[in-house]
């Protein structure tokens, strides 16, 4: 995992060019935040990384045979399984029962869903489904973590709590993380590298390296505020802000 190369990737859907000559090189186990306009191809990119979609041209090197957790843009919970069973489902082949119980409990507690572990998805609120999906992605012992808007539908307080937890988890068990977000704060607090993507046909418009250690990051930190401004300036015509 020393080096991940996303090389000259092209992807279009029936004449709609989505990714064009898209390139990204990543060294080491970092957290990569990806920002970009809606519909620009962020999910497509994650799907290519996950191997769900094949690019039309170009290739991804360094992710072969890696274990991947993918927090999809939708929760993708199995509706005939409870929250607990949904997580248990993906762990069953990998761990003994005792261990599974420990892991699931840990992550359900983290996302405040322990109380609701026996709920079926259609009895959960939007944010709760999202949290169950987060718990599932975190619980899976992977090398690479892909997350598509992980903190959407979460309230302010919970979002920051989870960002905090995530940092702690990551420090203990470092892995490569790609996460797509529309939340600049989350990107600033979590990302080592922040990529801002352009409109379709999509490419990297801006790449920023955030060198401040996680423990020192805060939305009041000057350097972070500067980065924020840089990102916002990259978007055009934002009224009122």
């Amino acid at each position, binding site marked *: 995992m020393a080096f991940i190369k996303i090389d000259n990737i092209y992807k279009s859907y029936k004449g709609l060019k989505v990714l064009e000559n898209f390139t990204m090189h990543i060294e080491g186990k970092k957290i990569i935040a990806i920002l970009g306009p809606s519909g620009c191809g962020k999910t497509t990119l994650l799907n290519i990384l996950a191997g769900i979609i094949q690019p039309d041209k170009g290739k991804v090197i360094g992710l072969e045979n890696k274990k991947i957790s993918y927090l999809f843009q939708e929760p993708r919970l199995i509706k005939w399984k409870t929250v607990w069973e949904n997580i248990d489902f993906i762990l069953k082949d990998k761990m003994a029962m005792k261990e599974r119980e420990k892991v699931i409990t840990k992550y359900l507690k983290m996302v405040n869903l322990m109380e609701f572990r026996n709920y*079926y998805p259609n009895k959960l609120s939007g944010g709760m489904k999202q949290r169950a999906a987060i718990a*599932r992605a975190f619980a899976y012992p992977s090398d690479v973590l892909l997350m598509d808007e992980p903190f959407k539908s979460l309230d302010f307080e919970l979002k920051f709590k989870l960002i905090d937890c995530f940092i702690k988890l990551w420090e203990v068990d470092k892995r490569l993380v790609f996460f797509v977000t529309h939340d600049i704060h989350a990107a600033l607090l979590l990302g080592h590298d922040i990529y801002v993507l352009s409109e379709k046909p999509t490419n990297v418009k801006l790449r920023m390296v955030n060198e401040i250690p996680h423990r020192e990051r805060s939305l009041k930190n000057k350097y972070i505020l500067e980065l924020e401004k840089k990102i916002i300036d990259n978007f055009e015509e934002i009224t009122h802000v």
Partner: protein
Amino acid sequence: MNSILKDRLYLLISIAVLIMLWKFLSLIIDSEIMLPSPEKTLIELISIIKQKTFLRAVFNTIFRSLTGFFISLILAVIIGILSGIFKPVHYIFKPIVGIIKSTPSIAIILLSLIWLGSEYTPILVGFLIIFPILYSNIIEGIRNVDEDLIEMANIYKVKKWRIIKEIYFPSILSYLMAGAVTCLGLNLKVVIAAEVLSQSVVSIGEGLQFEKYNLNTAGVFSWVIIAVIISAIFDYSLLKLQNRIEKWK
């Protein structure tokens, strides 16, 4: 509870209307052979139920019907899921299912009587009718499985057979139920018809044939009522099962 009572009420009204309609028609037609009256049929029904072999006949037919149903169900689920998931299996079974689906029973009944005997022939004839139904419902169910869930399970490297068991299977359940609800009743009816063709002894088919041969329409109707009741019991059991399985709804 109130709504269940209301449902029952509607059901009773509907049955009552049907019986009244029957009585009315039988008065107009006024021919026991063409349409016997409900009373006459009830008397026949009672006398049929009192026959010594009645229970054995009913048991034999139900047994054949259920055996055939479960064989068809299990084969349809296994072959259906496999061919829904693996294209080659699908194309190998396609012509076989096509043949099964459209072979008229009379064309195979002799071969079946020779090889299986009159005991099992009705089971085979039933199989030829209901297997394709169950099979195609399963195929359609698989076509409609949520691809996103399969993707999810594959990403998380869940074993194939567990994906089949825990995603495919529950997904097709609702299609399977639609199939099963029909097939249990349908199979009963087909088995009865096949019992006539294969002259199975002590069976509903035999009883029905006897009454029909004797132009005793009231007797024929009695057997129909018995078949309808058995089929209603099947349906009810299936409904209970379904409610149990779909507790997440």
